[in-house]
């Protein structure tokens, strides 16, 4: 198989055994990018020169026998809402088109210190608001399995670049499913860690209480490997977990005998394609055959998850996005004669429709007279959802569900109807509300050859169970297909 389609852990061996150099590897990735990028549009910005000179450094580093880390010399794509010092970070928005961060996100610092190779900044839905990666100032991302279709979102760029062989692995962010849903639609692995396990410092905020950075990779082992590299306490993030961090690769055991798996009925019903449903049932059967104890469970409060999410996320976003005002950085309408006109024009011209829509919803939900009816109420219902999940995890080790109710849909298909678009995240949103870890792994292809994903949800900080189940099921499913490009 072509170098650019190998996994990070396979490449680690080759690099360490000097069967390949980081320079060759990086060149092959950029070679692939040149082949397919004009069809995929998964990058907003490429850093070829920087990457190649970095690869050269790494090669001499390896040659000199210096200790290397898991990701040393591996080409990685980073979603463009993660700050990279002196490298433009746009969030796929016109308003940040020319924004050059003065600092590195904590995750980027961690990867830099491990001498990873940054390929470029990945395309996405503007400010991570979307489920299709169509809401980008830099044009929509296409699904490598069918470029007529969306790759999912908001981490569509990272997902498509990993699926198409442009990047070995990628960093994305997940607020309501933005890592798992595109991973599912692109036939790769996506992992959203427990809220607080990976620092948010330098991740451009969408909804602070929901955002979490995580890996998009070709297999579960790579996800563990990337998680090892980016997780851990950060004194710059007050919400970051301060606990002993295990080696996540140590949980990759092909054995789920006796593992208790719950199937939340609320995530299996209405709106779910029959094809998707059948696939997930197949996977559940596999789990049983492997000795797992599978049982249905009802978590009624999950019915309200979408509503809760579309109150809390826009509310926090409306405040988080207030800073884009044309004063300190970013786009400004220069014609406006007075401050208020400048604000209004700058933000009206700088933000796309979906972002403006959510700012409006959020502002409304927080405004005088509506706070209690919407925001405060949503916080309480969110708490009920959290409590119900906790109860569920007293009984189960992991929960299993489809990642997305449907396979990749056609570009433009849901653009005119926000609500239908929002429904794409029905299975992933509850997990963010409860701050839980969850992975999406490929479960196979639909009749029309599109990837289907299953979601494995764990209790807070129980990435061990998620990785163990995902790893075992991955082996059982044995998904090996690649998109034809």
């Amino acid at each position, binding site marked *: 198989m072509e170098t650019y389609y190998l996994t990070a852990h396979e490449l680690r061996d080759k690099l360490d055994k000097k069967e390949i150099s980081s320079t060759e590897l990086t060149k092959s990735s950029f070679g692939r990018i040149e082949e397919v990028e004009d069809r995929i549009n998964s990058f907003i910005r490429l850093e070829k020169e920087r990457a190649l000179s970095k690869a050269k450094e790494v090669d001499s580093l390896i040659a000199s026998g210096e200790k290397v880390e898991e990701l040393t010399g591996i080409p990685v794509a980073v979603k463009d*809402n*993660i*700050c990279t010092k002196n490298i433009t*970070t746009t*969030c796929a928005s016109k308003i*940040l088109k020319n*924004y050059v*961060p*003065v*600092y590195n*996100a904590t995750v980027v610092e961690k990867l830099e210190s491990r001498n990873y190779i940054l390929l470029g900044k990945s395309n996405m839905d503007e400010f991570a608001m979307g489920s299709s990666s169509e809401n980008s100032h830099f044009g929509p991302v296409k699904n490598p399995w069918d470029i007529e279709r969306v790759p999912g979102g908001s981490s569509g760029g990272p997902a498509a670049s990993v699926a198409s062989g442009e990047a070995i692995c990628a960093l994305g962010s997940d607020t309501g499913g933005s890592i798992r849903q595109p991973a599912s639609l692109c036939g790769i692995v996506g992992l959203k860690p427990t809220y607080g396990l990976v620092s*948010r*410092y*330098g*991740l*451009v*905020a969408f*909804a*602070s*209480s929901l955002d979490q950075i995580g890996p998009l990779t070709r297999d579960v082992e790579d996800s563990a490997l990337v998680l090892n590299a980016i997780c851990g306490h950060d*004194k*710059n*993030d*007050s*919400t970051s977990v301060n606990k002993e961090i295990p080696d996540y690769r140590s949980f990759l055991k092909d054995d789920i005998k006796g593992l208790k798996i719950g199937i939340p009925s609320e995530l299996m019903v209405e709106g779910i394609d029959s094809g998707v449903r059948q696939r997930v049932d197949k996977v559940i059967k596999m789990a049983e055959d492997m000795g797992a104890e599978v049982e249905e469970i009802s978590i009624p409060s999950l019915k309200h998850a979408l509503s809760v999410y579309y109150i809390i996320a826009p*509310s*926090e976003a*409306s*405040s988080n996005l*207030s*800073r884009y*005002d044309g*004063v*300190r*950085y970013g786009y400004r309408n220069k014609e406006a004669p007075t*401050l208020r006109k400048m*604000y209004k024009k700058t933000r009206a011209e700088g933000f796309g429709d979906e972002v403006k829509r959510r700012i409006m919803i959020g*502002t409304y939900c*927080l*405004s*005088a007279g509506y*706070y209690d009816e919407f*925001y405060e109420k949503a916080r309480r219902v969110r708490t009920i959802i959290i409590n119900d999940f906790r109860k569920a995890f007293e009984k189960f080790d992991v929960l299993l569900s489809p990642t997305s109710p449907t396979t990749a849909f056609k570009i433009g298909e849901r653009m005119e109807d926000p609500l239908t678009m929002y429904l794409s995240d029905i299975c992933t949103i509850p997990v963010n509300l409860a701050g839980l870890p969850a992975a999406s792994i490929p479960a196979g292809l639909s009749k029309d050859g599109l990837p289907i994903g299953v979601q494995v949800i764990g209790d807070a900080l129980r990435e061990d169970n998620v990785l163990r189940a995902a790893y075992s099921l991955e082996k059982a499913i044995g998904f090996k297909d690649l998109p034809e490009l």
Partner: protein
Amino acid sequence: MGKESKYESVIGLETHIELNTETKMFCGCRLSFGDEKNTHTCQVCLGHPGSLPVTNRKAVEYAAKIALALNCRINKYTIFHRKNYFYPDMPKNYQISQYDIPLGVEGHLDINMGGYVRRVGITRVHMEEDTGKLLHTGSTGRISESEASAVDFNRAGTPLIEVVTEPDMRSPEEAREYMINLRNLILFLGVSDCSMEEGSMRCDANVSVKEKAAKKIGTKTEIKNLNSFRFLQRGLEYEVKRQVDVLESGGRVRQQTRHYDNRSGTTKTLRSKEEAHDYRYFPEPDLVPIYVEDKMIEEVKKTIPELPSEKAKRFESEYGLTGEDCVFLANNMDMADYFEESCRHYDNPKNIANWIMGDFSALMNKNKVESIRKSKVSPKNLCKMLEIVDEGKISSKMAKSVFEEMFETGRDPGDIIESRGLKQISDEGLLGSVIDEVISENPEPVEQFRGGKEKALSFLVGKVMAKTKGKANPQLAVKIIKEKIG
């Protein structure tokens, strides 16, 4: 009788105090004092995308110190909120502040108004971050007259404490006294410079007026920019008069925010209630709650020095001064220390207090010496002078002029008396011979005294004083005269 007297004003104050920590509230940038523009900023206090706040422990401790000193109840569980509104001096277009669960609540500060004590309720003491500074281009540097403005974010993120009172003050004077007392208190605590000129202490007021008899409070206006004790009183006086005039002319006071213009000494409308802000407060998701442990409260309490009120009580019991005197001394940290140091050299506290509050304070005011510490008179010398008076070496009348010289030159009272030759004649022999002369020169008064005319005695003493150019010790003179002719 002026029509104001029919009414009384109802005033509540909102004071913002910048803490003097090393670094800002939520980032590691140093606080700045008139440094070059934008030299103390980072991604956090500039509100750059992706940056996150982390709370300054010392700022929380200082805030608790203020809350405790104001007799507040500390909320064991306290959180930050976001206050959302757009203004160019706000990096994030929201201010991290506190809302329904502030650090301190239900406190009070007692203000001594001379004749009476006014207890001002403290509604809340909360923590927040300061904004940047707007510099308005154009000659006047005034917002209304400038074509553009520039923002300096050095101040953005400076730890800020907001102290909100109940509407308990009943006159501009009381409001002014409250501010003076609050400032004293915080200077005592040493957590802020409280410089109204440099804006490290800023004050807004809520004012309404009502007929003295009336129970319910009238419609209030909010007055901004009352940033000196003088402006506070003048601004409030103007606003109270304005409201009274409105009511007297049959109008109604409209709820609005007004701005005090210290040039004209008047208040002008900023915005009316209709266009009031909708701040969309909600819990700050980037910060976690603070559970104030008793341990922390105890630690903070240890760092609080003796406060004026406690000091006053102690002075009363320890030195037997009157309540009035105690409050006067205790409210001024330097004066209180000066008083106590003096008491170590000389054990007539009442006498010391009288001098400090009397001649001493008078001279200080006259010569604009703002602190007794800055005066040339050391406690030692003050006490030395008081002893000399007690020994009868000089009369208390002379003492006044001696003290004036001490105040000007800081010289030792003994030297002054020497060089001016003011020593009283207390030598019986010397005085005796003078008295003999007086007796022989004034036979009639002597007879009249023998006849029981007390007045004659004072006449004779007067003669003795005249002969000695006032240096004779009067008491001694009386004693000797009685001996000689009694």
